[in-house]
């Protein structure tokens, strides 16, 4: 982050508040970490490292673990059938017990995807530094926290020291505005972020913290904001942030770990200062015209390869940049698509609603509303996987599970599930999905599987019609 004068951006303010030690020479800054979230996949080697060096966890009270990546979403009361997955989950339990780290294991009422659990408990708060051995940690930036994914060596570093040596990021403003501050009907924050990634590319945010701003962002709910921040990493940015406001405070108030009484007032007063100063200058700035946004889907094998649903599969021959052309050719071959095919004509086998991107209660409500009174198309399988056990319980209380099962969808337990197919929820080779998750990489949802990233609305409409569709196609 370069200092452009008197004003500071939101990211710079949070950074400065966490400086344990300021850089000297080429050394990185040393930043304090307020919240460290842990899961079973990227932590075993870190705990091993601590043991080998005879180190302890410095702040188990700032560390929280949950089981999400490997967990089955069916038969969750039985032991995990896959012995390797089971070992990994059991290793996390042993490590948490040995080092005193709180853990929400499978079947616990608070278990779920780590990026759903933190916010719903009220642990994710404005102005915090949040890390996790998972790239979608950027989700927590929706609260005005500086939150980013780290590798296993960094997980070990944070466990041992509660700090990280980091080089300053640059800052980029993503301005999202429309004439009246709303999105057009059928358009969601998922479409906003897919359009943003298509605009700047998978490397466009590399080295930056993104700050989402503008009247559209201000009018979004916390859950919609989380969807946007979640996918910052797909544009190459480690973190995405949104300045906290009354929407943020209303979401937090009364949650288990949110401050209360005088501490609440003190917190809100501090949080109100977490805004980019008017005179601050971003290192880069882009604009998205939300009036022009329509439902967006990906056609290729990286999240930047997306287009409005109304368009056709692109013709690689018309792409000028050689690297992008070759990438598009390879993507179409892998995806089994012909240039010029209308995206709406693409037939899917599976629809997945869930993940840390779109597995929250509002996402399930949106999908259920579309599905209500319809049936999932013949030959299509639809999986609905809540992001957490709390989301599952809430959905059942509202009767959403009944809507899903009546339509012919499968109602599952909480976890990462088919977003990355570490558990049995996978695509078969050649199978095609419309998925509310975050990555359409080759093989991401199962070896040979083909993924189209979509919003929960498009997912539900697609399940009904069997081809990529938006809710307006159901009328």
């Amino acid at each position, binding site marked *: 982050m370069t200092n452009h004068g008197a004003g500071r951006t939101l990211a710079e303010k949070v950074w400065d508040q966490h400086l*344990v*030690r300021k850089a000297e020479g*080429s*050394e990185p800054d*040393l930043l*304090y970490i*307020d*919240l460290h979230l842990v899961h079973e996949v*990227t932590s075993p*080697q870190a705990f*091993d490292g601590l043991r080998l*060096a005879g180190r302890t966890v*410095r702040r*188990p*009270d*700032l*560390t*929280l673990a949950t089981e999400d990546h490997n967990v089955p979403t069916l038969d969750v009361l039985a032991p995990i059938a896959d012995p390797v*997955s089971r070992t*990994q989950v059991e290793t996390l339990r042993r490590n948490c017990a040995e080092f005193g780290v*709180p853990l929400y294991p499978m079947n616990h009422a608070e278990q779920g995807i780590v990026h759903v659990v933190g916010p719903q408990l009220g*642990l994710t*708060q404005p102005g*915090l530094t949040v890390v996790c*051995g*998972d*790239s979608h940690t950027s989700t927590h930036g929706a609260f005005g926290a500086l939150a980013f*994914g*780290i*590798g*296993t*060596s*960094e997980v070990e*570093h944070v466990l*041992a*020291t509660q*700090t990280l*040596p980091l080089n300053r990021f640059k800052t980029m403003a993503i301005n999202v505005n429309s004439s009246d501050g709303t999105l057009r009907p059928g358009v969601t924050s998922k479409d906003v972020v897919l359009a943003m990634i298509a605009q700047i590319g*998978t*490397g466009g945010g*590399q080295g930056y913290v993104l700050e989402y701003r503008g009247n559209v962002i201000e009018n979004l709910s916390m859950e919609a904001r989380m969807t946007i921040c979640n996918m910052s*990493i*797909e544009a*190459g940015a*480690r973190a995405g942030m949104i300045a906290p406001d009354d929407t943020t405070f209303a979401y937090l108030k009364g949650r288990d*770990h949110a*401050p209360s009484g005088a501490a609440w007032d*003190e917190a809100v007063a501090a949080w109100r200062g977490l805004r980019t100063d008017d005179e601050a200058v971003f290192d880069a700035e882009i604009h998205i015209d939300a009036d022009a946004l329509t439902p967006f889907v990906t056609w290729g094998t*990286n999240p930047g390869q997306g287009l409005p649903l109304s368009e056709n599969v692109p013709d690689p021959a018309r792409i000028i940049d050689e*690297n992008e052309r*070759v*990438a598009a050719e390879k993507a179409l071959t892998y995806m089994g698509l012909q240039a010029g095919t209308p995206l709406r004509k693409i037939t899917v086998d599976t629809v997945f609603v869930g993940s840390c991107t779109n597995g929250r209660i509002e996402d399930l409500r949106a999908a259920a509303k579309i599905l209500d009174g319809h049936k999932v198309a013949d030959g299509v399988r639809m999986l609905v996987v809540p992001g957490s056990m709390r989301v599952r319980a809430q959905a059942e209380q509202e009767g959403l599970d009944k809507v899903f099962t009546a339509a012919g969808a499968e109602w599952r337990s909480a976890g990462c599930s088919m977003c*990355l197919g*570490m558990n049995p929820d996978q695509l078969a080779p050649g199978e095609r999905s419309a998925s509310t998750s975050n*990555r359409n*990489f*080759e*093989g*991401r949802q199962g*070896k040979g599987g083909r993924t189209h990233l979509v919003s929960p609305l498009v997912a539900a409409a697609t399940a009904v019609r069997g081809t990529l569709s938006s809710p307006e196609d159901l009328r």
Partner: protein
Amino acid sequence: MEPFTTHTGIGVPLRRSNVDTDQIIPAVYLKRVTRTGFADGLFSAWRADESFVLNIEPFSRGSVLVAGPDFGTGSSREHAVWALMDYGFRVVISSRFADIFRGNSAKQGLIAAQVTQPDVELLWKLLENEPGTEVTVDLREKTVQAKDLTVGFEIDDYTRWRLLEGLDDIGLTLRHTDDIAAFEAGRPARLPVTTPVR
């Protein structure tokens, strides 16, 4: 970590951009609880194709990977670095690296050497025209050399120093334990702790 100064090995041209970490090591391989034994998972989907570069002699014995822009995008999995190193790679050359991958590499002593895309193209041509060409990567001089071609690469000064010295990050930070304790003493009491409340 072993100090790194120079490395010479067979260069492998990987004509791909956006090599994401799901390609480097698919999620099904991430269930192990060790740092080793990931070589079999490296590029496993692509290696099923016998024309893939790592299935061709002498590239299969390569240790310097030369790839297109946006290498290591996606997941934070450090397993990607472990898999590359387990296979025998010591250096990856690309015109742009994903931030988390670059950081993970630096922790493990895998050199992520950033060169311009035109230099990547020159290296690709050279390695394809003369398979088995050895590439020398000199961290002191920040150069990549193959046959008559020498190009400079970028790596941040601190990472370079740490790799040259073979220093462990945690050890370096623990020299500042007093600073950490002082910072902690000043943190507001209202900040959340993870201890379950019910």
